[in-house]
């Protein structure tokens, strides 16, 4: 093995590169702490409610059942209606809040799960809506749909679903 033959120049180069990267990372990380704090505050303040079509007989779900629905593990309601989960915009705080409390994972981890599903042709991710109004409008016209909106939002043709731990 010629490990010694490349060890010294390799480590020297890695050390120099590492030093440069370290300084840059600290600066960037420090600068972004304030932004992270703002988002964390918004995250804590974000409340949402899960809604379904007003004709849907289901009145409550557990968080685990909700997670299974939004990961595509469950595809039908107990009455046989086809489930159509609706997710929210990738970078929205409401999505971060929902993912954190229901999936108990990062949005990146859930996103990666769907990347693998799509890449393998196995399954498809939920539709994405970028506003409470669009979510409510879709659900009111699709009996099997389920989504989440800002707490306090109301709309015709939908009602809230209780989520229990």
């Amino acid at each position, binding site marked *: *093995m010629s490990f010694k033959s490349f060890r010294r120049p390799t480590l020297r180069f890695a050390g120099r*590169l*590492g030093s440069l990267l370290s300084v840059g990372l600290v600066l960037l*990380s420090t*600068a*972004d702490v304030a932004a992270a704090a703002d988002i964390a505050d918004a995250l804590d303040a974000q409340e949402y409610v899960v809604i379904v079509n007003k004709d849907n007989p289901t009145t409550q779900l557990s968080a685990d059942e909700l997670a299974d629905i939004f990961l595509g593990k469950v595809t039908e309601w107990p009455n046989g209606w086809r489930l159509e989960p609706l997710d929210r915009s990738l970078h929205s705080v409401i999505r*971060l809040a929902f993912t954190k409390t229901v999936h108990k994972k990062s949005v990146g981890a859930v*996103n*990666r799960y769907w990347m693998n599903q*799509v890449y393998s042709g196995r399954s498809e991710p939920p539709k994405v809506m970028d506003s409470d109004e669009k979510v409510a409008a879709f659900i009111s016209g699709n009996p099997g749909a389920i989504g989440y909106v800002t707490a306090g939002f109301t709309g015709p043709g939908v009602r809230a679903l209780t989520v229990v731990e």
Partner: protein
Amino acid sequence: MRHSGKPLSIATALLAIGVATVHADGIPAPDLVAVPEPSSEPSGEGANGPSASLVPSVSALAEEPSTPEGETKLIYAANRTPETLFESPRAVVVLTAEEIQRRNARNIPELLMQEAGIFVQQTNYGGGAPIIRGLIGKQILILIDGIRLNTATYRFGPLQYLNTIDLHMVERIEIVRGVVSVLGSDSAGGAINIVTRKGPGPRHQAIGGAAFTRFSSADQAFSGHGEVFGRGRSYRFLAGATYQTSDDVKAGGDIASQGATGYDEGAANLSFDYFVGPSRTLSLGYQLLQQNDVPRTDRVLGGRNLVFDFDPQRRQLLTTTYEDFETGLRVATYWNRQEEGRQEVRTSAPSVERSLFDRQDAFGVNVDKDLYFGNNYVVFGLDYAWETIESRRTDLNLLTGEERARRGNWTDGATYQTFAFYARDRIDVGSWLSLTLGGRYGHFSSDGLESSGLGEFALTGTQDALTGTVNLAFHLTRQLNLIGNVTRGFRAANLDDISVFDEREEGTEIPNPEIDPERIWSYELGAKFDSGSFFASAFVFRSDLSQLLLRVPGSYMGLPFLDLDGNGAQDAGEPNVLQRLNVGESRIQGFEAEAHWHVSRTLSVFGHLTYTEGDDLTADTPLPRIPPAFGAAGLRWSGRSERKPWAEATYLFAGAQTRLSPSDISDSRIGADGTPGYNVVNLRGGLSVGSVHLSLALENLFDEGYKYHGSGVYRPGLQFVLGAGYGF
């Protein structure tokens, strides 16, 4: 007292990584590029024509960069996990099923001839070797569904094995230009991952089938493919078979029909997925392709051989895979068998027919796992493979009928093992920097015994190599990334390097199992822009290769010659020793640029340009087989009506290549004058009528006589290419 800056550097690094890691999950991370979401309509007609796309027809989110067609391409090969082209900090290309169908190429090498950064050399019409960043042959890693196709006997120079993959079973092709450290050895120039078609996607019919046919006029090439597929609640499958035959190729210009080009081919493939659960899949796959009587055109037309046929050229791949998307675990096992028969009659010995046969059997397992913690996305795993070879030769005296067994191309019964562990961590530092750190440790061992009239030579030896990569992607805006990459790669010596035994004029080359891996340092600077309607990328690169294996005077038992009588003096009949030693150095640099602009929902323009320069620093000459500057430009129209008509005009060009190495000059495929440039125009179009999809192409519109630099065969002249597909 001298103070070292090292502790400060280390402490700062740890602090930075720690700060980056504990950032709240709420920070919008740059790796949150939208997953392609389902289209609003069921895809009855899709990328593979009337049989319906067997992968979900998807459209990207309105808020994320996407094409008007809603196309978001994913690539696995760059980091062993799916990521979008924009997200990947590497120079990557993905050919989708739709693009594959439009080009209606004869085979995979010819399909790649229009791609950015890839130059395809053809020794014969049954060949087709990709050159990426100036490197070819065993320096290009070919994968099928992430499983290595390269065997321990892949040699330097053009290889034909990319053409042993049936194009009809291909869903898409991923190309990474440059060293891919997590994939390890053989990827010094880049990696090509062939993603095969599986059963239908989630929105498709339960049982169906399709048939495709293709005909091209210049080579009278006909191919027919039939398949059946289906999907149930807990399974999906696809099974297909292909037959292809071609005659001698009529080139363009003043070049007459080229003999010794046509051949036959048959293939079959099977894919079966069992859905263990909503996020877990157990898969079984099998592929077989066999080519018969594939002539080596340059040797026959060049007069060196009266006969030179590869017969058979056969490849089989059996794979089993278990994937759990929720835990991020993937386990794959495989058996990869490649067989090559060769019949030769040399002009210098017309009464002797040489029959060679080589068989490589590789058994392997790959285990991959990914996980998130904080802002880190980690992928790690291990690869193991064990390979054995069979190699023999028989010389038949055509006059007397006498047969004589001779040494094959490699040491018969030799074995080769590889073990590797890799890890890659992507760290999102805030919202505008992604840092990827990757490393791979590889251990390689060879074994075997070369028995010859000059003695016995053991092939027992081991090699170890460590690679690493640092990728930086600065997200200046949501649409613009600036990229910097530094990668240290290696290419472990394989059995082709180790088991060589060749009696030459200047000496006898004997095995050298103590050689080390070749090394490469790769540097890249690039940028990617993606606004949805406009995508562009540009990279400049430099690769420094060292410890390259060269055939030079060596030694055996401390002497520079084979001391057959043991007297310590070189007597008559005692040849000089030649060996492959790690003494070479070279440098390759260049740039690659590509762009694709959707001018409107129906019209798009595209183009790319690649320039490469290579120097052999040891010999102070240009490197061999470096492509000239080459590129393409085109215009595509896609109608929105129910029949989905489309039309495309493409201009392919390359400059002349007159910067030649000594081996280029002596190569009958190139010569002292080098290779002229070319300018070729292709027109294509198609539409769907019910369940039938039709396409027509006029290729080489101006009947240019041309060939790719280093090729032994000219490309077809003006020809029409018909394609038809039917789904049921």
